Structure formats: structure tokens, C-alpha cells
């Protein structure tokens, strides 16, 4: 009988717990942040004109800063006012800054005119709405311009 057979032998219990988690492989992604600032819409009225308070033609001047943002900012222009009891009030409009096509899209509906189109570029653009009242009925016109 050799001596090593008498040496105490211990088998160490080892629980090998392995986790193949990607602790060393975290992932990262990025996102962009964006915004667009447009000029404040300003609407002014030609104070020298009594719009729709007489049978004479009135002129409403809308001072509309351009979108100032993307190359093509859309715009909705709404003009509403009292419709004369006689022949319906008609609106014609022209513009001095390339908005004629926009204005010609106007349709008349119960005294409310709505159009939408594209404002391009920056800077102040003037829209002139000429109201040719068909009677002497009074009323007001409110022009609302909002960027979409």
C-alpha cells in the first residue's frame, strides 16, 4: 500500500454560473432635435379705408411676414364679414408678392372667404383684398392668417 492512497482527498464543489450577457457590449443610439421658428403673423388694416361700411370699395391690407421657415410654408387666409342683404358681397384680391394664385383660389361661402396656399421665402408680403360691397349694408371683416 503506497503512501499517497492515504492522503486526504477533497473534491471542491464548484458551481460555474455563466451569463453571456453583453455587459461589455452596451448599445448606444442618437436622435436629432429639430424645430422651426417662423415669423409672427401680423395683420394690419388700412386705417384710411372704411371697409364694408359703405357702398364704396374698401381695401383691407394684410401685412403678412413670409414664413421665414422652410422654403414653402403653407398659409391659410380666412376673411369673414357681413354679407350685404342685397347682392352678395364679392371679394376680389390682388397681391404684390406673388400670391395671386393663392387668392384666386378663394371661394365665397356665406361671407367667409378661405384660401390656402404656399408662402415662399421670407419678408413682408402684402395681400390686398378689395371688397366691392353690393349695398350699403355695414359689417366688419376679420382677416385671420395662420401658418399651418
Amino acid at each position: 500500500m503506497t503512501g499517497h492512497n492515504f492522503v486526504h482527498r477533497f473534491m471542491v464543489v464548484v458551481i460555474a454560473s455563466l451569463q453571456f450577457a453583453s455587459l461589455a457590449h452596451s448599445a448606444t443610439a442618437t436622435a436629432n432635435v429639430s424645430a422651426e421658428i417662423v415669423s409672427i403673423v401680423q395683420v394690419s388694416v388700412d386705417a384710411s379705408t372704411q371697409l364694408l361700411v359703405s357702398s364704396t370699395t374698401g381695401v383691407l391690407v394684410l401685412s403678412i411676414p413670409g414664413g421665414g421657415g422652410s422654403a414653402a410654408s403653407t398659409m391659410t387666409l380666412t376673411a369673414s364679414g357681413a354679407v350685404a342683404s342685397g347682392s352678395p358681397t364679392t371679394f376680389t384680391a390682388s397681391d404684390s408678392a406673388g400670391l395671386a394664385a393663392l387668392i384666386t383660389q378663394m371661394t365665397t361661402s356665406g361671407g367667409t372667404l378661405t384660401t390656402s396656399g404656399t408662402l415662399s421665402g421670407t419678408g413682408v408680403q402684402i395681400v390686398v383684398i378689395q371688397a366691392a360691397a353690393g349695398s350699403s349694408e355695414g359689417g366688419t371683416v376679420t382677416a385671420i392668417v395662420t401658418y399651418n
Partner: protein
Amino acid sequence: MSTKMTRLVLALGAMAAGLFSNQAIAASANASASAQVVTAISISNTAGLNFGRFAKGTASDIIVVSTGGIRTNAGTAVLQTGIAATAAAFTVGGDSGLTYSATVTQNATAALTTAGLILSALTIKCGSVEEASASATKTCTFAGVTDALKIGGSLTVPTTAVAGGLISDSAAISVSVDYN
């Protein structure tokens, strides 16, 4: 018993004693080995944080986009609808049931800064709870093999903000994810 027989008995006894002693002091046990293989965690960006189009107000204002993509402001800035506001969105891939940490970092915003805008107060949402956590870490749990992570934020719009084209800072927000 002869002397020869006596020696033989003694020798056998010694061998038996040695054998029994050896068996009594040896020890053995089994060991188990276990492993859990998990999917490598991943993240991809699917949408940016977009504050949309607006006109600055007569006083400084703060525009907030929630993690749900809802845009609000309390001041005089005028929110427009031409550009949809969106929360930043990420898809995180991993193993269902495991938790992970998402760390949000705000990076440089040169374009916003040039326009006078200040990005602040990022919010983060995974699961159902939105948490305000500027450059913070949030613990999330995979309900499936993917998880949706949304980042909202606040944008300060001072009266000195400059109107112009679409302002965009790429990689302005970083999100790092890792298993817990």
C-alpha cells in the same frame, strides 16, 4: 497457530485497516454548471425630437414635447401645425423579462443655440411611466424582445430667437442601454 500463520493474519489485518481508513477520509461531490445566454442588447433610433413649427411670443416661452409627442406651451409663442411634433423614439432589443438601464445624454446643440433656442429638461419613458431625467438613467424592463423608449424635452424660446429655416441638430440626444 504457527508463527507463519500468525504473520499472515497480521498482514491481512493491516491491509484491511489501511483500506478502510482510506475510504473514510476521501470526499467527493458533483458540481453543476449553468449558463444563461441572452440576446445582445441593441438600440436603434426611429424618430427625432421635433418641436415642430412655431412663432416666438412676446415674452420668453417654453415649448414642451412630452414622450407621447404632445406639444404644449404656457406662454405667448404661437404653435403652428405644419410640422408635426414628435418625441424621440428608440427601439431597444433584448430578452423578454430582463431589465436594462437606459442613460440619456444631451449633446451639443449648435444649431439650436445659434437660433437662440435652449434645449433642456429631457424626459424619458419606457413602460408606462414618464420620468423627468435630464442626463439620467432609468431602469426599464423588456416586456417582449423589444421595448419602446421615448424621449421628450423642453425648448426655451426667448424673444431673441431668430426665425429661419428648419433647425436641426443631429445626434443631439444619446441613449445608451445595458442589461442590469
